[in-house]
């Protein structure tokens, strides 16, 4: 020992002191390895989730959530693609700088860095990822097999829906049909037909696994049904102009007796009309989930209500403004189509309980029309929180009248004009109701019949996000949208987001013309 101590007494004290130190050190050494092992206290981790039926339901619900995404983080509303990018509507808003990137879409000047374009891509793949998680994790869970089959069917539909969006907007895209491992991140684009094949396979499996609308419990209203899977498959076949399969499938949907036309057209777009008799696929939104602005609109409300309402007294942002050309379509047959009243607001008309539409009341903007299908009354506004992200209107994605009109179109192409007219006139009859002198049954044949079907789609489904895609798939886009800046060889597809070409070191190749 070092000669540290002067005498024995010092030594004795020192022993006490050293014992004290040793005790302290021993105690501190007792801190064991678990001390550093900390797992999150809120929320499960991947290792301990996906074990129970409840976990499976939570997993599929999380895959539904991206259906509601509208800001990821820029807006990618269905009506931007279907309506603003068509001759039915212009962007609107408070001026050119108000959502300028949407203006670029309207005028077909958007480039690869357009944020709306990137946000749509992002939201679609987020939905696909979540569906893939369900398809990979749920099969291993011990649970009710019937429920498991349904959940897998729902996931297949959701995956198909997002690929459907991608393939119709961008063409062939990377085929992320499973959760990607880091080595697969730079997945290149698949061909358009490969994507369509996946969409078709998924939808056929979904249709086989899913219950009919009437077979679901009431509390499951809003879940994907067999009819929804069949109807999206119908749209898939129609896009590929596989008319005979399309007609057969459409007839199957009609004959399932799950869907009827709502007698009162105006009611479809009201709160009472949500999930009505002709609703096949409807994205659910509600006004009472709180939350606020944020990526992917982190609540269950929609922004479409506030985006599409007039400014000023009506407290909206005034986007998706109907064009004169669109309104004139409703007068084409020599009378005012009664559906116009349910589709647009004209000056002097009451805007629900928010007052009468005058230009002064809208803040002095020069717009003559405002869209009506996403209009919400003051009385329907969010009971708490910020009303703007908490719009309650469901997005009516596929209605029975859409299926009927697609049936008419398919039948026409199959040379079955009588069947075509029958479905067409069924839609017109509902719109006509008891009104005299409007919407007589169509008796046209040949090209005139096809034009009648096209016209009917434009007015029946106006401002519901169909127009751009209808023009594109029927080959009329160049002629109709050309004057608006559309160039078929370029604008048939959106640009692939620039960030994605960079993020994959060029493994993803840009569409031509961008």
């Amino acid at each position, binding site marked *: 020992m070092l000669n540290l101590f002067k005498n024995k007494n010092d030594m004795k004290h020192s022993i006490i002191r050293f014992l004290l130190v040793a005790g302290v050190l021993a105690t501190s050494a007792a801190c064991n390895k678990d001390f550093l092992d900390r797992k999150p206290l809120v*929320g499960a981790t991947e290792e301990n989730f996906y074990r129970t039926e409840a976990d499976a339901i939570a997993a599929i619900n999380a895959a539904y959530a991206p259906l509601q995404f509208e800001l990821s983080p820029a807006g990618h509303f269905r009506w931007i693609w279907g309506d603003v990018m068509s001759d039915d509507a212009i962007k609107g808003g408070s001026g050119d700088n108000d959502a300028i990137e949407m203006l670029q879409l309207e005028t077909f000047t958007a480039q690869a860095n357009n944020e709306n374009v990137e946000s749509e891509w992002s939201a679609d793949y987020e939905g696909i990822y979540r569906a893939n998680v369900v398809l990979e994790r749920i099969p291993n869970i011990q649970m009710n097999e019937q429920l498991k089959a349904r959940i897998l069917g729902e996931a297949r539909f959701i995956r198909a829906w997002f690929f459907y969006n991608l393939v119709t907007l961008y063409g062939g895209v990377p085929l992320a049909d499973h959760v990607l491992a880091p080595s697969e991140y730079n997945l290149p684009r698949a061909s358009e037909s490969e994507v369509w094949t996946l969409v078709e396979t998924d939808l056929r499996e979904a249709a086989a696994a899913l219950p009919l609308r009437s077979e679901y419990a009431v509390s499951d209203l809003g879940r994907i049904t067999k009819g929804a899977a069949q109807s999206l498959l119908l749209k898939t076949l129609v896009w590929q102009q596989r008319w005979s399969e399309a007609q057969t499938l459409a007839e199957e949907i009609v004959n399932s007796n799950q869907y009827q036309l709502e007698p009162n057209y105006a009611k479809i777009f009201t709160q009472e009309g949500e999930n009505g008799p002709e609703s096949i696929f409807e994205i659910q939104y509600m006004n009472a989930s709180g939350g606020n602005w944020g990526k992917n609109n982190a609540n269950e409300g929609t922004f479409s209500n506030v985006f599409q309402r007039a400014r000023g007294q009506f407290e909206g942002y005034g986007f998706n403004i109907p064009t004169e050309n669109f309104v004139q379509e409703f007068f084409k047959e020599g009378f005012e189509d009664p559906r116009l009243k349910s589709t647009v607001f004209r000056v002097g008309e009451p805007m629900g309980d928010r007052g009468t539409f005058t230009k002064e009341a809208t803040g002095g903007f020069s717009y003559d029309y405002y869209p009506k299908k996403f209009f919400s009354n003051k009385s329907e506004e969010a009971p708490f929180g910020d009303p703007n992200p908490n719009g309650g209107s469901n997005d009516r994605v596929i209605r029975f009248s859409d299926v009927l009109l697609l049936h008419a179109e398919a039948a026409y192409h199959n040379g079955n004009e009588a069947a075509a007219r029958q479905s067409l006139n069924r839609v017109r009859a509902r719109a006509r109701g008891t009104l005299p002198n409007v919407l007589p049954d169509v008796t046209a044949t040949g090209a005139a019949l096809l034009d009648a079907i096209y016209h009917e789609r434009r007015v029946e489904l106006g401002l519901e996000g169909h127009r751009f895609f209808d023009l594109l798939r029927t080959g009329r886009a160049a002629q109709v949208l050309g004057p608006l800046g559309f160039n078929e060889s370029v604008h048939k597809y959106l640009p692939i987001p620039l960030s994605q070409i960079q993020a994959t070191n060029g493994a993803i190749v840009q569409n031509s013309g961008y």
Partner: protein
Amino acid sequence: MNIKLTYILVGLFMLASVAQAQINVSGRVTGADGEALIGATVAVPGAKGAVTDLDGHYQVSAPSAESELVFSYIGMRTLTEKVGDRRVIDVVLEENNALIDEVVVVGYGSQKRSNISGSVATVTAAEIAETPVLRIEQALQGRTAGVQVTQNSGAPGSPLTVRIRGTGTINNSDPLYIVDGVPVDGLDFLNPNDIETINVLKDAASAAIYGSRGANGVVLITTRTGKKNQDGKIAYDAYFGMQSAWKKINLLNAREYAILSNEARVSAGQVPLPEFAYPDQLGKGTDWLDAIFSDAPMTSHQLSLTGGGDNSTYTISGNYFDQDGIVGGNKSGFKRYTARINGTHTVKKWLTMGTNLGLTNLSRRFLPENNEFTTPLVRALNMDPVTPVRKSDGTYAYSRYSDTDIVNPVNAIEQTHDRWNSKRIVGALFGELSLAPGLRFRSSYSVDATFATRNIFYPRFDLSSDPVLSDAPAGEKNLINSVVLQHNTWRTWQWENVLTWDRHFGDTHHLTLTGGTTALENRFEYSGGANTNLPSNDPDDAYISNTIDPIASQSAYGGADESSLLSVFGRANYELKEKYLFSAALRADGSSRFGPNNRYGYFPSVSAGWIISEESFWKSKALEYLKIRASWGQNGNDRIGNYGFTSVVLSGQNYTFGPTQIITNGSVPLTVANPDLRWETISQTDLGFDATFLNGRLTWTSDFYIKNTSGMLYAAPIPLTVGANPPVRNIASVKNTGWETDLQYRQRAGAFKYSIGGNFSMVRNEVTSLGEGGEPVFAGRVQSANASVTKTEVGQPIGAFYGYVTDGIFQTREEVAAHAFQNENTAPGDIRFKDLNGDGVVNTDDQTYIGNPIPDFTYGINADVEWKGFDLGIFLQGASGNEIYNATIRYDFTYVNRPVSVLNRWTGPGTSNNEPRVSLSDPNQNARVSNRFVEDGSYLRLKNVQLGYSLPKSVLKRIGFEKFRVYASAQNLFTFTKYSGMDPEIGAYGGALEAGIDRGFYPQARVLLGGINVVF
């Protein structure tokens, strides 16, 4: 011999030996000027010492003639006198200008400054006292080279951005704060009056002893304690000040606004608004900035008791601080009560116990800060001047032209009830054992616990002129009130054991070995609830259960997270002949924040110093002390979030089902997991010197350093096809290269004493890697352009501004046609942007770097003068070469008001070449991110001027006081800057990637205050 007798004999012997040796010595201690030094310490090794009285007198008993008396006094050179046969020893202490003998607190120990081989800066209590402020970081600003402090906001209590030697990471770059050995988050709880010294460990070698937490530098704060054998002192310090806005921006008045509105409508093809037909009739209108700013008081009272006896020391202090904001008065007010009890007690000769305990009760009220949407400032800048503050009936008016964000700011302030209260206890209990000469063991257990409540009430109000029509826009009314209450608890405990062996081997070798362990646990818990539709609209009734239906709209939430740290560390300091200095340290940290594959990190360092002036060949008299130093070390940054390595299956990814729309839970892992996650590593090399000249009157310290951050955490974007958020990975790196210097000169000329000094820091910041692929990071989205303002890319500094470059204004259609295509509706009067790549189209490829928010250099200048009881202190601080992106005007709205510079707008060929035409529509996107909004952010600010007068000692003696001083001071009296916004001092409010973006910074106040310091 029986035992009793033995005791008696031994006792007598001891008495005799004591009596035999006792020599009473007395005397007087004075300074060079002959003035008595009050409170100088006279230590007698092996016996009881003393402290000089009001006249400088002392009296001690020395054990023998061989005893030495050690005289010391702050700021003076310590003097040792052998007693010999003297009975009266008067001494004159020389001023120790050089400060090289001061003892500096370093991690887990202290060292004489002359023997330090790392880079450590010190701020003393006297410097802190010079600027009466709320937060201790404010006192650090401009005081030391290499430490850049910027206000995030002028709102009372708002945190500051503190960067030691540059921005080390795009993540959390805040230094580690240690108060009396306790690591703490945030310093708003500390009362600056309680601080004895602040030491900043700047280089990696000094900070290495803090291992995985030292990467951004370490700030060691020591609170005051009494001294042994010191008469009790009672000190009272108080001040009262008034704050006011130091600057006002000139905005358009109502008449000018109307003229421009008419012009804007006409140029967009619309008719002017009828009410603006006669602009002259509108007059000046409302000055919204005047409406939101008001003078606001601040006040502080401090009472402290210090002293010490043979075996103990104590400090007890209490402080009350109250400051209102210059925007919103007490709606942005800050109030703090602090109490501190520090004490030590020598229980046995070999055992000392002590406590440091601070208690704080802090209340703060918030107004929204630094965003473009809801701050009073942005609203006041953008609100049209035509709208009055109030209507004729006295109620608040709303604008007929604005919608969404720009609402009546005065009403918005009134409707804001956002209150924060926290109660915090930061305390340590320690014991120190002397095991053998030079061998000490210290064990300390400390706790930092905060219990905080945030209470937000949003009342019902409606500015509609017609309540039936409810005509006010959405932001001007809230028909359903709501309340949110959140409780937060932070708890940290730490247990540290340190063994130190300090031994001299003759005069040649001095070795200090330090080793220890740390265990630390952090836990944060929160719970809260909300409710709406309360029958009472009184904020004092805003409790969640005070509602008609207490269940219906109630919501509750809560959660917790935690982290832990286990460490072992060691350090060896070796001094050879007091000339050659060596130090090496190593720390091993195990942290729960690191992924399972990288749970332990090791952080080494070495440093060396050479005091050349001690060499026999050194002859220079003028340069009396010169030390050169070099150090290298590695530190970590563990502020990477608590669970970054795992992927949480996040609930709340909901959807709604059923006819009544029931919110149904969904869960999914949103982020890809990374089990390899670990700390960010900073390797730093430092070269420096310390020199003193002219009998210590001039001191000069300078350092050059290279600081490389590697393994910087970055969630590098992965392709969106993955569908989940990218994992954070240790993939990026940053380099900071800097030079800093500190010069001080002190002189005395008769009764005149002065000092002048300055410090200067330069740092160059460069991103050296952003991982494989190296995708740049865009951040700092501003609403006026609806785009990102900063781009962080390899080869550029963090958060550089990126956008278009303007090139004057198109004067004619021909000029538009001749230039690269911008937009089909681009018209004369619009801005010409440079077509940088010359492809004939101005698009995103024509963006470039247009500014850097990081200053080229920052500096501080101080001057102090004393003359016959008067003291004058002047302190300036500045930054140079940085840019600010001014995003305060909401160009995304068409009706907003603007600074008067818009009056120089283009109205026809030749009228302006920098201010574009006004138009309701902006097809050319004149408001896009461009150098138009990038301004020079350099400033020089007269931070503080203080003039004080102390009563002379002769008077003090008569009234029994030790000190009586009154002073007046002014903060932020002058600011020299070209920046057109409210305040050029802009921190990194949204993090390093968003530094220097002005989204409506709450400006700092000019403060005029008066105070007193009394000691008796």
